[in-house]
C-alpha cells in the first residue's frame, strides 16, 4: 500500500526505510523500463514533440528519481528507494524560522489548478491540491488521487518537526516516498517558498478551516 500523507508523523518518518509501492498497474501491464527502453521512449518524445510557451523540450529529460521510478514501475527495491529519498531530502531548501504562512493565501493556492503548462504564464502557479486531495471541509469538489487531508493539523498539532515535515513534503514529496505520485512543488520551481509556507499554514494553522 502506498505510504500516505495521513500516517501519523512518527510512522511517516519511520516508514522512509520501508519499500514504497504505489498500487499502480492494476491492469498488470506496468512493467518498468530498462535503461535502453528509457532512452528509446525519450527519443520518441523528442522526435514527436515541440516546445510551446514555457514547456521547453528540456522537460523530456529524466532526472534520477524519474529514472528510478520508470525502471521499477514505481516500486523500486527498498535500499534504492531509501537512497533516493535521502538524496531528495538533502536537496530541500528549508527556510529558517516559522514555516507557517497565511492559510487564506494557502487556500487560494490549493484551489488553483493552473501553472507550468504551455498555456500558463510563467511564474503564476497554483498547487492543484484539490485536484487530488480533500482539504478544507468547505470545498466539496475534491479529488481522491491522494489521501484526505481534512483535519490534518488537528490530529497532529503544529510542532516545528511537523511544520518541517509538511513543508518538506510539499517542497519535495519524493524525499518521503521515492515514487510518490505527488509533484515536487518546490524542487520543480512550481511554488515559491512563501506559497509553500502558505500551504503549510492551510494544513497546520489551528485557525485554518482544515482544522475546525
Amino acid at each position: 500500500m502506498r505510504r500516505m500523507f495521513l500516517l501519523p508523523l512518527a510512522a511517516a518518518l519511520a516508514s522512509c526505510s520501508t519499500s514504497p509501492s504505489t498500487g499502480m498497474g492494476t491492469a498488470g501491464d506496468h512493467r518498468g523500463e530498462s535503461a535502453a527502453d528509457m532512452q528509446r521512449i525519450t527519443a520518441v518524445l523528442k522526435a514527436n514533440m515541440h516546445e510551446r510557451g514555457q514547456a521547453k523540450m528540456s522537460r523530456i529529460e529524466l532526472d534520477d528519481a524519474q529514472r528510478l521510478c520508470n525502471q521499477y514501475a514505481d516500486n523500486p527495491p527498498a535500499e534504492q528507494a531509501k537512497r533516493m529519498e535521502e538524496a531528495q531530502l538533502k536537496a530541500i531548501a528549508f527556510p529558517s524560522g516559522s514555516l507557517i504562512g497565511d492559510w487564506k493565501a494557502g487556500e487560494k493556492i490549493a484551489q488553483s489548478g493552473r501553472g507550468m503548462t504551455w498555456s500558463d504564464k510563467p511564474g503564476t502557479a497554483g498547487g492543484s491540491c484539490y485536484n487530488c486531495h480533500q482539504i478544507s471541509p468547505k470545498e466539496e469538489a475534491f479529488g481522491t488521487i491522494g489521501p484526505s487531508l481534512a483535519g490534518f493539523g488537528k490530529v497532529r498539532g503544529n510542532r516545528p518537526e511537523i511544520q518541517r515535515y509538511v513543508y518538506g513534503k510539499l517542497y519535495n514529496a519524493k524525499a518521503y516516498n521515492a515514487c510518490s505520485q505527488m509533484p515536487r512543488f518546490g524542487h520543480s520551481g512550481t511554488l515559491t517558498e512563501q506559497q509553500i509556507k502558505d500551504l503549510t499554514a492551510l494544513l497546520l494553522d489551528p485557525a485554518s478551516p482544515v482544522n475546525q
Partner: protein
Amino acid sequence: MDNERRSLLKAAGAVTAVLVAGLLKPLTALAAWNKEAFGAKTPAAAMKGIGVADAAPSKDLVIDAPEIAENGAVVPIEIASAIAGTRSIAVLVDKNPFPLVGRFDFSGGALPFVKLNVKIGETSDVRVIAEAGGKHYVATKNIKVTIGGCGG
C-alpha cells in the same frame, strides 16, 4: 437518446435552413422582448416584470433536472405542468446575475412542456412559474454546481 438522435438524423423531411442575417424578420409582429423583466437583477424584480405578484406552490408543476451539475454552462432542465389550463411557463435561476431565463407561451395544441439547457453560475434554486386561469403557480428545485477536471 440513441434512438432519438439517429431518427433525428434520418428523419424524412428534416431540412437545414440557411442563415439569412437580418433579412428574415417575421411577417407577423413578434411579441417584444421583455427588456425590463430580462434586465431585472433579482428574482422578485424579474417576476414583477412578467406580471407575477403572487405564486402558489404546486406539486403539479414538475421540474426534472439533475440535483448536481458537473458544469454550470449546460444544465438540462425539463418542465411539465399538469395544472389545467396552463398557458405559460417562466424559468428563473435565482442566483444568476439576471435571473429570468425565459418565458414560454403555449397556444393551439401545445402541451405545457419544455426541455432546454440553461447556464447556472453557481449553486442555485431554479424557479419555475406557470400561469393558468389568471393565477400563478410556482415550483423550485435546487441545483448544485460543482467543479470537475484539472482546472487548468
